[in-house]
């Protein structure tokens, strides 16, 4: 039987170890206290230690007889879906709710290869109208509809 390395498990193990090291390092910079009066660093340090140990075990067990492939990655999705909320966060105060939301929906719409540009614009317009009516007018959420960047 051939030994293989399961990439998914190996990467997961490494990520757990790295996360554990980060939390452990940060915890050591805080007061640990005693087990009677635990400081802010005590509990996270213990957890981080456990996470590192689990990470090591996961990594060791990645070497086994059969490895499962990771499969395709949604690169286009990552590049267009993840920036959408970030864009909304960056512009909602400046552009205001209406313009910011329209562009957010438009960015997200292009994450699919099947979306045609004119449909994307139409969809973004409809989403913006609906959301402005429901969230801003009907539910009265405190959004500025048009922000300072759009005033001349």
């Amino acid at each position, binding site marked *: 039987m051939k030994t293989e390395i399961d990439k*998914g*498990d190996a*990467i*997961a193990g490494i990520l*757990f170890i790295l*996360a554990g090291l980060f*939390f452990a390092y*940060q*915890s050591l910079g*805080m*007061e640990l206290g005693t*087990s*009677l*009066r*635990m*400081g*802010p*660093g005590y*509990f*996270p340090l213990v*957890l981080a230690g*456990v*996470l590192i140990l*689990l990470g090591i*075990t*996961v990594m060791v*067990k990645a070497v086994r007889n059969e490895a*499962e492939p*990771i*499969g395709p*990655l*949604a690169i286009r*999705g*990552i590049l267009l*879906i*993840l*920036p959408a*909320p*970030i864009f*909304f*966060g*960056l512009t*909602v105060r400046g552009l205001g709710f209406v313009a910011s*939301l329209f562009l*957010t*929906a438009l960015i*997200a719409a292009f*994450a*699919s290869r*099947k979306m045609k540009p004119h449909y*994307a614009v139409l*969809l973004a317009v409809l*989403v*913006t109208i609906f*959301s402005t009516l429901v*969230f801003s007018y009907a*539910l*009265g*959420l405190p*959004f500025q509809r048009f922000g300072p960047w759009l005033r001349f």
Partner: protein
Amino acid sequence: MEFLSNLALGFATATSVANLGFCLIGVILGTLVGVLPGIGATATIAMLLPITFQLEPVSSLIMLAGIYYGAQYGGSTTAILINMPGESSSAVTAIDGYQLARKGKAGTALAVAALGSFFAGSVATFLVAIFAPPLTVVALKFGAAEYFSLMVLGLVSSVALAHGSILKALAMVVLGLLLGLVGTDIYSGTPRFIMGIREYADGLNFVAVAVGVFGIAEILRNLESEQTREVMKTSVRNLWPSREDFRRMIAPMLRGTALGSALGILPGGGAILASFASYTVEKRMSKTPQEFGRGAIEGVAGPESANNAGAQTSFIPLLTLGIPANPVMALMVGAMIIQGIVPGPNVATEQPALFWGIIASMWIGNLMLIVLNLPLIGLWVKLLTVPYYVLFPIIMAFCSIGVYSVRSNVYDLYAVAAFGLLGYVMLKLRCEPAPLLLGFVLGPLLEENLRRAMILSRGDPATFVSRPISAGLLLLSLVVLVVVFLPQVRKKRDEVFVEDN
């Protein structure tokens, strides 16, 4: 007679015009997301959480609960019609339900699923009403040590019930606990793990984490391979099951209800386990096991009753102890906290109208579902043809609005993107997100109770094993952990979950 007067108070609360309306909105929305691909109940509740801010506490919880069990109904509809379970708990329904649909008995399968769910939902609601009050009395006696041990049991069970590698699920719990600790330490005021970003001093936003890990990650996975879904072309007719069908569904329905009610109380996703267990039981008990997998009514009636009963009884630990049994319940905790209600045994005594109103609304919601869904099935089938690329820009827009409106903090939106990426990477590495979210919610509570217990015992860790309830709970956690690592059980567990993929 206290039971009856409590229930009367509950029904009086739940049947106010506003609450009936929110219950209706909840179940319709729930069915909708259960039917539509790519957005589960967890992500929807996470998105709507901020909006419920504006509502009365009772109304908001009634609506969120409605989404939860509505999604279970919707999930079974897609499982039967297109062999694609909308919710993981209806994965089992797809096995025989889809076969029935292919034989032209889609209507029967849908009706059996709906009737089974309604029956189980009604019974389980009464069980919640009967068992919740005595449990709150027990829970009021709980000290810090008991709470700590109970949460340990909850986290361990969520690991046991997660799919795939137990080790990775354990690591996800620990990572979740650590992420839950991000923010200012309540005892010393020290900011922890915020890397100098003051906007995270109040902790990472729970809604942002939930939307990222469940919603965004799921969207990204759906975008990997965009296929068009095939909907059954056969029209759905002959909804009412024949007398023979009725005869065959009664016993599985009763067994499924019993099984689901018991397993639903277990922390960590009882509804999913309940439907799998019920399917196995029905197959074993059947005189014609060869029919299973080829369209057995029992294979739909049992698991559907079980998962709905489990969905209802999973409210018991939430309402009595304030401990969430699954990610949806964790979101309900979030909703209660937003409303300024501390989940736990005090809810029943301090807010009886809220407590009993939610319980009564569950039964009303189930009734609405059966009245609404059987005639509306045609509409739901049409919705299945909505292409996915139209859906997710809408979801993204609503996610962004929802997360931002919780506390008008733009850093929460950046957290959505970060946790979306984390969730997607974890999904690719076959790590379950549910244990992470439970850990995230319980992290601060676990630490607080640990510290309090240690102060009360003057630094003696023996307090966790010398107090009987605490010792029992820890022992139970240990047993669960040992059992899932046993080789035979692991093999069996793999078999059970293999059908889910």
